[in-house]
């Protein structure tokens, strides 16, 4: 290879395709002068090369292994317009404050991807390369999806605006609760929790991710009792109510069967788990679109690959993929609750899900401008270890278009489930009212709640019960950026 290196640039074709092994950078997967086209898909990886591997070569290797390359030169490249099909690493920046790690920008031509298929997109970009030996670790941090590609996806079947119109609920976060205990309740007892929570003031209740069809409660039984509860609560309050019936099952045939019963019983929403896979999610999205159903996604399993900063796939990328794939709700963090969630990172996920257009926002981990091409918006769901006493913080961090889910914070109320639901609803409405009146809810929040509790005993009891509960641990997944950095 000495001859090639002397040449200093791209080898002549005859040299380039000589049988043997060659550096990825020399094979054409590194091009510092490359200017991405508007139609290119751009991936930003955090790479941690092995000792002695220079970052440009590592970036080129990622580009190669996630597009056309294999470990050795193949002459059959010459039967293709291979320049076009090669991904191009074009920029490598050291990660601020993290020695040995680099942000690598890689551009992929639109022709590499099948329209409307998350499976194809992910098989390309994360299919092979994450086990590649010259890298110690690899993380997909962000992705710029060209609008031409975005338009090949249907996106959310309902979206935030239409969901609000269907539910006739505006101007405040929606409220939900996951039925607890997660396992063991019979269908009849399970429906009791749903009824009490909805009648007490919640908009939604939810099956947990692992509630499918177990010996203690078969799915049909759950659906029938839950819909009795939903309809009783609608009659008791005059409001539209819903319960996320989890249709996750072992096969698509089973999922369709369960979703059809949910529809027949008049449910406005069905639920799936992330672990069913991208193709199954897209199939259920099409079903939901055909049947005017809100599609709730529980991100079961995501922390196995989203939490560690050096390896895996950032949740902001999963958020982008799920908006394309077409879900209406997705769990995206609470900031203040029991699960991982740095405020900036979580707001970045929320912006990806909710905005028409994302600006570059390094502080929130958004490396690219993203035009969503009119794709509907996904309602983020905040769930896990939150309670009424945090209402001002939740509204401050998460805004209005979010489902706040208080599971333990509803069902664990000392006076019962309906009282827990009422406490949450009163706290929420009081906080929104105060915010709209121009009050400083961040600082006055506890006082606003205390005032609201004067006309609502359940809220007073909730505040007394959980007043000191916080989950104050350092976050693992925080954006790395230099505050003065300018937009790329």
């Amino acid at each position: 290879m000495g001859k090639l290196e002397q040449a200093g640039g791209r080898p002549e074709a005859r040299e380039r395709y000589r049988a043997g092994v060659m550096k990825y950078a020399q094979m054409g997967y590194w091009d510092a002068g490359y200017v991405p086209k508007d139609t290119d898909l751009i991936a930003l990886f955090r790479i941690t090369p092995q000792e002695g591997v220079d970052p440009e070569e590592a970036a080129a290797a990622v580009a190669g292994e996630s597009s056309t390359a294999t470990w050795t030169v193949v002459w059959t490249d010459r039967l293709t317009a291979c320049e076009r099909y090669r991904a191009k690493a074009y920029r490598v920046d050291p990660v601020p404050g993290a020695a040995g790690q680099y942000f690598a920008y890689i551009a992929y031509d639109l022709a590499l991807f099948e329209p409307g298929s998350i499976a194809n997109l992910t098989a390309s970009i994360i299919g092979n390369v994450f086990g590649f030996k010259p890298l110690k670790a690899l993380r997909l941090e962000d992705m710029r999806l060209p609008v031409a590609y975005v338009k090949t996806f249907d996106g959310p079947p309902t979206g935030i605006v239409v969901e609000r119109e269907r539910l006739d609920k505006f101007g405040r976060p929606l409220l939900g609760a996951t039925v607890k205990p997660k396992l063991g309740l019979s269908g009849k007892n399970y429906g009791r929790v749903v009824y009490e929570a909805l009648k007490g003031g919640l908009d939604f209740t939810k099956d947990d991710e692992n509630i499918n069809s177990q010996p203690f409660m078969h799915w049909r039984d759950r659906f029938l009792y839950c819909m009795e509860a939903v309809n009783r609560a609608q009659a008791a309050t005059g409001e539209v109510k819903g319960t996320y019936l989890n249709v996750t099952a072992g096969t698509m045939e089973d999922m369709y069967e369960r979703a059809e019963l949910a529809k027949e019983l008049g449910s406005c929403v069905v639920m799936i788990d992330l672990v069913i896979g991208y193709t199954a999610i897209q199939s259920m999205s099409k079903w939901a679109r055909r049947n005017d159903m809100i599609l709730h996604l529980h991100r079961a399993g995501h922390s196995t690959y989203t939490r560690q900063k050096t390896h895996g796939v950032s949740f902001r990328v999963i958020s982008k993929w799920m908006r394309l794939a077409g879900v209406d709700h997705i769990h995206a963090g609470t900031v203040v609750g029991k699960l991982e969630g740095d405020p900036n990172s979580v707001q970045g996920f929320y912006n990806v899900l909710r905005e028409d257009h994302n600006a570059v926002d390094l502080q929130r981990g958004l490396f690219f401008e993203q035009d969503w091409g009119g794709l509907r918006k996904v309602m983020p769901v905040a769930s896990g270890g939150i309670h009424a006493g945090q209402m001002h913080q939740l509204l401050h961090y998460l805004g209005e278009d979010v489902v706040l889910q208080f599971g333990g914070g509803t069902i664990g109320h000392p006076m019962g489930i309906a009282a827990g639901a009422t406490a949450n609803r009163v706290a929420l409405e009081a906080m929104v009212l105060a915010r709209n009146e121009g009050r400083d809810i961040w600082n006055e929040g506890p006082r606003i709640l205390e005032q609201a509790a004067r006309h609502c005993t359940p809220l007073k009891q909730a505040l007394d019960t959980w007043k000191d509960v916080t989950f104050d641990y350092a976050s693992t997944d925080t954006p790395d950026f230099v505050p003065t950095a300018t937009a790329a």
Partner: protein
Amino acid sequence: MRITQGTFSFLPDLTDAQIRAQIEYCLGRGWAVSVEYTDDPHPRNAYWEMYGMPMFDLKDAAGVMAEVDACRKTFPDHYVKVNAFDATLGWESLRLSFIVNRPKKEPGFGLLREEGAGRTQRYSVRAYATERPEGERYT
């Protein structure tokens, strides 16, 4: 019972000063406020009667309050709500919607069931008040 549609139904009925503060919030964001009323509060009744057009060009909370008052005076035993419409691209729907008047007595809703195969039920919610003709309910 108390129908809990609308943004603030779990709070004590809003005072005029509170209603006005919410209207000011909406006007400050450039939203068009409108007033609607009904005596059919079924949760799926999407079309309450419009008390005039949305006030696209009215930027004065006092003016909006006058409309709210006029509607409440004309229909003291109806449900009256204030809506705020945001015409921004990508939203083009309501941003806020809250009840500002309700009948003194709210009899609520009955739940009708029709038995189906396999223990399924077809449910129907019906307001007791709507068994009487429009305009004669809640009186």
